[in-house]
């Protein structure tokens, strides 16, 4: 599938084998085809993304090819989102944060911040530039402010003219790039202290770092606000392997031990499109809906380990990426289009028949009740007028309806004199039309009849002629026969003569040659 068709860019980044993997002589399960930079093979399955970064890709390369463009847009007042997804120690933190302060090793976030600040310095002095940061996490669909632990269940507010936003979330001003990191560290510490079950928590919470870049023109007061979401997605975070010599487990295979997950189990049963699940709509989607929609810039970075030990996690990460590339939007086409007119007609007849059928079955139900000896009160009775009309009509209604426009007769309408009157005048009118038509047809038939007579005459004349000719022919035939005989008789001597002549000339020839 062509990458262009999706709004979401998905890239995969593979880290190199780490020391302990090398020591354990772990093999790499992934193969990078040498001629393509968007494909990877893992145990014979090929995954294609917008870009695949190999273990040797530099931080700068990753930044330039995934995030730089987005930063430009954000500075122009658009929104952007970068998701990071992957298991623990797959290089997520390295990719997003990296080594702070190191030119070569710093990750996407410091580079973004640096770029934004650099941009600020190139601007006119009449432009006032502000950068604010929010940091929160979404756990069990509750939004916890990581910069203020007292805010544990912030609502998403959807302003009809504006952006969906987290109401009441703390915003911190930053004026230097490394302040962003201080704030992030503060948030991370808060995250650890606030929860009771860290293991479960970290594998099920999304953390969101939100950078607002706002510029205001001091001269004309024009404001431009861009937002950049950096989301650490939960889901692939498996409980880290502890050196236990166990098997590699796939989190998804396990069942939940805690009854608190009953709600998830139940809500997985219902068909999402037709039902309403009281709490399942995701706050994350709501916050990000504009970033996911249409033309916003969204990139998902899949972080993966190449080691065979992590094969199942890596595969599930890549699968997620594949699914994410085609996140289904919610435009649903309710009606199948009935295209041609006849199809519409047919549908309508079908509905009509169905409606009539149900009247019939209501009548039958009532009949059933009468039979059982029950008394059916007047209110419950099926209108007899209706059923009288309905019963004989049902079986033939489709043919009648198709052949004549009266099929749409409203059998159920109340005794509305006006309507009936109108109906009747229409019927009369139609009757008149039919009469005219019959008249026309009758005339045509007359005309055709006379034509047939004419044709008949011509035909019989022709037949007579034919007969005469036949007689003539019969008469002429014997004549022709006898004449032929005469000719034969005359011709015979000639032939004999010719034969003699031939013999004579031959004789002459032979004599001459001697």
């Amino acid at each position, binding site marked *: 599938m062509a990458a262009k068709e999706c709004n979401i860019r998905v890239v995969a980044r593979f880290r190199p084998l780490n020391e302990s993997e090398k020591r354990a002589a772990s093999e790499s399960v992934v193969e990078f085809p040498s001629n393509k930079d968007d494909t990877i093979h893992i145990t014979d399955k090929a995954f294609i993304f917008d870009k695949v970064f190999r273990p040797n890709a530099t931080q700068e390369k990753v930044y330039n090819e995934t995030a730089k463009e987005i930063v430009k847009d954000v500075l122009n007042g658009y929104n952007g989102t970068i998701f990071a997804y992957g298991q623990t120690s797959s290089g997520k933190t390295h990719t997003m944060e990296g080594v702070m302060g190191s030119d070569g090793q710093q990750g996407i976030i410091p580079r973004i911040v640096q770029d934004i600040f650099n941009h600020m310095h190139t601007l006119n002095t009449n432009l006032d530039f502000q950068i604010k940061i929010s940091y929160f996490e979404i756990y069990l669909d509750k939004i916890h402010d990581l910069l203020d632990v007292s805010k544990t269940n912030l609502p998403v507010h959807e302003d009809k003219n504006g952006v969906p936003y987290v109401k009441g979330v703390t915003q911190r001003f930053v004026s230097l790039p490394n302040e962003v990191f201080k704030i992030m560290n503060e948030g991370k510490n808060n995250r650890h202290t606030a929860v009771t079950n860290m293991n479960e928590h970290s594998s099920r919470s999304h953390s969101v770092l939100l950078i607002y870049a706002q510029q205001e023109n001091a001269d004309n007061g024009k404001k431009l606000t861009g937002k950049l979401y950096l989301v650490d997605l939960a889901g692939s975070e498996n409980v*880290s392997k502890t050196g236990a010599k166990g*098997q590699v487990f796939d989190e998804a295979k396990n069942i939940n031990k805690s009854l608190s997950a009953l709600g998830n189990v139940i809500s997985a*049963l219902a068909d999402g499109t037709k039902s309403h699940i009281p709490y399942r709509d995701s706050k994350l989607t709501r916050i990000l809906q504009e970033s996911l929609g*249409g033309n916003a810039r969204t990139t998902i970075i899949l972080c993966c380990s190449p080691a065979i030990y992590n094969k199942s996690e890596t595969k599930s990460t890549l699968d997620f990426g594949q699914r994410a590339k085609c996140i289904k939007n*919610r435009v649903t086409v309710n009606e199948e289009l009935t295209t041609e007119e006849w199809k519409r007609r047919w549908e309508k007849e079908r509905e009509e028949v169905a409606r009539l059928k149900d009247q019939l*079955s209501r009548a039958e139900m009532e009949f059933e009740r009468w039979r059982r000896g029950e008394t059916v009160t007047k209110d419950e009775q099926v209108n007899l007028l209706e059923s009288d009309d309905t019963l004989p009509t049902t079986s033939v209604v489709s043919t009648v309806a198709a052949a004549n426009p009266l099929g749409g007769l409203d059998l159920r309408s109340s005794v509305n004199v006006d309507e009936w009157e109108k109906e009747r005048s229409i019927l009369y009118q139609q009757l008149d039309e039919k009469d005219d038509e019959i008249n026309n047809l009758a005339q045509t038939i007359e005309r055709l009849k006379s034509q047939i007579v004419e044709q008949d005459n011509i035909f019989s004349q022709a037949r007579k002629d034919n007969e005469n000719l036949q007689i003539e022919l019969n008469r002429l035939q014997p004549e022709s026969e006898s004449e032929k005989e005469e000719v034969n008789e005359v011709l015979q001597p000639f032939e004999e003569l010719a034969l003699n002549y031939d013999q004579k000339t031959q004789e002459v020839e032979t004599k001459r040659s001697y």
Partner: protein
Amino acid sequence: MTFLERYLIAVDKCYVQSLNDSETEPYKSKYEARKLFEELYDVDIGDKSDNLEKEFQTLDLIEEDDKKKFIMIQSDQQAKELSVSKKHRYLIHLLLDYHIAAIYSDTEERSEGESRLRSILTSIEQALHHPLLCSLSLNLLNQLILIRTSFEQYNDAIEIAKQTEDLYNKSLVIEPYLLREIIHIDTSIQADDRRQEFEQTYTHTLFYLAQIYGKLDQKNESANYCRLTLERQLTMFDTNHSKHFDPFDWATNCATLSQYYMTNHDFATARHCLMCADKMLENVPSTHAENDKLAERIASFKRCWVKYAVNLLSDSSDRLLQAADRDVNPNEIVRSSTTPQFQFKLSLPPPTITCSFILDYDQARQVFLFAMDKIDSAKSYYILDGFVTDHVELCQDTSQLYSKLVFFESNIDRKCKMHKRRIDLLSTLCGEISEEHYLYIMRQLLFELGECYSMLLDLKLEQKNDLNSNKTIEKISHLTKLGISTFERFLSTMNDKKTKEKPETYADEYVRPVLLAHFYIARFYSKFIDNRLENLQQSLNQYKIIVNYVDKHPNSREYIEQEYSICKEMIDLLPLKLEKLRQIK
């Protein structure tokens, strides 16, 4: 410190403190707990109690296949092992074995854990339902279910669950002691509390089964076990064991379960669940810390009812259509059921809405009014400015309700009015919310609005044949224009934000809606009564857009197979028609 105290510290470390282990050392507490349990093997238990002695009278320890095993003793039989302390010590060892095995399986060494658990099982399987052993057996079997499931051996897990069920049934006549009472029987514990604890563990078994059947995609079975879980939770409520029961969660889960039965066409059960959910919510104290949450949930349940009504109407019309198609009684397609599959023990008011399939307009109207009432009150919570998504969904439901009601209506004037209502509702919303920020929603609204115009137009055209008046002709042309502009606006939402240009290629999920929008526009153009020549030309252009797109993107053909061939035909036919029109001119 007594043996029991040391044991309880280990248990606390294993099951409570371990929850707070850091990401880098996720099993720190588990490993420490394992150590604590291991140390207890050699510790003397010390005290003896009469109660224990009494219980051990019915339990014998024998040796079979080189393995010590507990068996039950009938009252007239003599025990082989007479020493209570030997039996007691062995049982405590099994208890410690159990915890250690469970730790193995919790720390990703499931095979090790499983073989240890199986070994314990052989030692107790002939006396599973002894009062002293009951809790150990149940916990052990639950652990095995978890392990088998993690290996994706779902059928094994179900087999074990059957054993668990058997154990549970046998336990009903006895009084199972708590797990820790294997060490020391605590006479201060009420029989009821012991029972509750045991029941709670068994509830987990059922909950595991719900998940296993869910994984096997046997939704009906899964739903049934979810229901049993809820049912058992409800008994906790009856007996006022409030620590095990949260009315708020229970109500929510019950309402969610209703949505399963509803989409499964079982409206009687769905209705019962929803009524129970509503009822249970009354038990949530209004002083509930998160008061807004309660108001939200009340409104949310109303939305469940709305979906119920929409589905009921929709299923009913499908049923009648199918019956008509096959020329059979609707009951032969599917019979209405008025009795739910199960009943939670709650006293409910009489139902205010039917659960039978709808047969005629009057019945449909009742359902419609019921749903409209729910929508209105839900909207007073989900106001537009603040809850855009929810509010819009409620409006979309309203539109759906009208469209389902139309089926049961046969009067063309009234059908038109219903579609008009939908149009008013949807077009007002389109004017109010920001397209930039609610792009998805806007697209949905515009598409549905366009469809409404199309349906209304068809009805008006039908009317026109009956009553030929200038007014209808004017109306038709107006509707046609609105329809076209709506679909054009829908298409413009696809344009690039910056360049304002149409994309070369649409994402897979948009191909069908986009091409259908062109198709609708083509149809609209062909319905204009005046300027036939120009409008048919426009119509032809639209068909060409579709065909060109599909020809350029062969993969997209599958999304629009049927329409594509029609477009092709139209491209052949329309020029002939245009030529004829020109000649007439």
